[in-house]
């Protein structure tokens, strides 16, 4: 045995074993699709006697009150795609402010006045109207970046949350690529959107790239393993709640009436105030990148936002700038989704932004899930 370990044969064997294992590990992580549908669909949201889901927001209020997790927002260092960490100071002469790591411990409002420059007046580039909702798509320009915002307004009775006035398809929905819950199961946002007859879609939280983080979609719980993330719950009444996975279990969130839970973060705007702390800014994504975010202004009034980035035309936004932009639109709650090459806005059959991973090639990235609004079931629609 000593002879084997002393010889070139051992060196060759260990080299081959290391190479083979690494090849397998890379394939398993990035390529080999694995469907998780066998026995993982855990429970559906309980329906009350009127066949609607009961919403209990007190669960979230209590969690915020007792949760000792004010610091523990957002994801751990195992952050999802393209959210980054810059060790360099973000000195930005255009705004006359400078942020560096030393000031990271001070409060956000003190060290930073405003980091987003004046947003140019928007240009409406598309509209869609049906009996239940109106979607207005506008393009903005800020920080050398093109920003696309789809304003979704539920009409008339729908804003009073009268469930009989509108159907589930009129509220925000989510979908998996290939209609399959799994790892490395991916498709372009536009493809998944078309398969689901979406009029408006953005990429989701790319749950498929993570081994943990709650996954609740369309009222079904798929994964209850906590990743310690800050999540967004979209409740059955269309309202938004941002919570920490450390405070609430997935089952509790489902029982509280959550129809969809997105697990990426961080929360950008909460109670109309910017919620991205300085620690998060430094710790995660000071770099300018393409971004995707979703926000709610008031009952029945939402905004889906996607920015360009990493190109000569569009630099991209930092998380803080994104939060400021969402706040400027009037969001009371806003949440950050997967950015970078994943950021895609699909509207009326077209990709509106310029999705890119490296900046040199405009191409959609395949993602594991989307957030969308469906076309109305009736046929009376107008769109431009």
């Amino acid at each position, binding site marked *: 045995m*000593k002879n084997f*370990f*002393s*010889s070139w044969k*051992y*060196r060759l064997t*260990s*080299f081959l074993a*290391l190479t083979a*294992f*690494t090849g*397998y*590990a*890379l394939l*398993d*992580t*990035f390529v080999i699709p694995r469907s998780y549908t066998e026995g993982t669909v855990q429970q559906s949201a309980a329906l009350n006697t009127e066949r609607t889901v009961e919403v209990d927001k007190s669960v979230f209020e209590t969690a915020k009150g007792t949760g000792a997790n004010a610091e523990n927002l957002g994801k751990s*260092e*195992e*952050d*999802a*795609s*393209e*959210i*980054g*960490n*810059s*060790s360099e100071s973000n000195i930005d002469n255009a705004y006359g402010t400078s942020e560096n790591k030393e000031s990271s411990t001070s409060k956000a409002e003190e060290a930073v006045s405003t980091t987003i420059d004046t947003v140019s007046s928007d240009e409406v580039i598309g509209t869609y109207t049906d009996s239940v909702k109106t979607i207005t798509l506008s393009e903005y320009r800020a920080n050398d970046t093109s920003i696309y915002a789809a304003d979704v307004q539920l009409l008339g009775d729908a804003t009073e949350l009268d469930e009989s006035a509108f159907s589930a398809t009129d509220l925000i929905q989510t979908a998996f690529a290939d209609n399959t819950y799994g790892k490395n199961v991916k498709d372009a946002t536009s493809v998944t959107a078309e398969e689901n007859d979406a009029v408006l879609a953005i990429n989701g939280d*790319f749950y498929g*790239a*993570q*081994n*943990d983080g709650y996954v609740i979609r369309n009222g079904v719980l798929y994964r209850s393993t906590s990743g310690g993330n800050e999540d967004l719950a979209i409740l059955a009444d269309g309202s938004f709640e941002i919570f920490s996975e450390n405070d609430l279990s997935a089952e509790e969130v489902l029982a509280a009436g959550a129809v969809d839970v997105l697990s990426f973060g961080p929360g950008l705007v909460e109670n109309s105030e910017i919620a991205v702390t300085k620690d998060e800014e430094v710790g995660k*994504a*000071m*770099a300018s*990148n393409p971004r995707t975010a979703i926000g709610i202004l008031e009952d029945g009034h939402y905004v889906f936002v996607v920015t360009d980035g*990493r190109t000569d035309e569009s630099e991209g936004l930092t998380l803080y700038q994104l939060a400021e932009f969402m706040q400027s639109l009037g969001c009371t709650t806003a949440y950050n989704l997967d950015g*970078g090459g994943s950021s895609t806005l699909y509207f009326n059959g077209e990709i509106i932004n310029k999705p890119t991973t*490296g900046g040199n090639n405009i191409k959609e990235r395949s993602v594991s899930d989307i957030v969308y609004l469906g076309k109305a079931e009736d046929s009376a629609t107008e769109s431009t």
Partner: protein
Amino acid sequence: MKEKCINGNVYKSGVIVSDISQKNEIMAAKGEDKPGEATKKVLGYVLITIAVALFGAVYEYFSFGVYSYYMIYAFAIPLILGVLPWLFIASARMGRGATEKDHPPMYTINLWGSGIATLTVGSVFHGILDIYGTTSSLSKVYFIVGAGLLLTAFMTFIGYREKKMTDARIA
């Protein structure tokens, strides 16, 4: 002409060979060229350290501001576990007459080397995943196997030394 290599010195018919180049020639011919071997190992690990550091730097450069300590500091593994011990061995051999028992046997060297390789590849792999933004339970395998190989190498070296010291006492 009886040549013997004992304790890092070369003896020709009982007389110590003081000429360095002649000594090296004889040692090389006898395969006892341990100082040369150690120096080569040092150089080899220095090159590996530089290669890993460069790879990490280039990878980070293209990663849109995302960094991973596993990627950036992967080079520290061959540096601390490879360069430093071999530097010590090379200097000891060249200097103050370390004996044969201080030079690790081939199987220890091989096990230790594969431990370093496993840990380094594991660190780079974990760094790639970190930067992409995902995790894998397979990452752990590298660190467990790597540590196991290093531990095994260390234990075989201890065993070897014990044996040599026992042999010396008996002889």
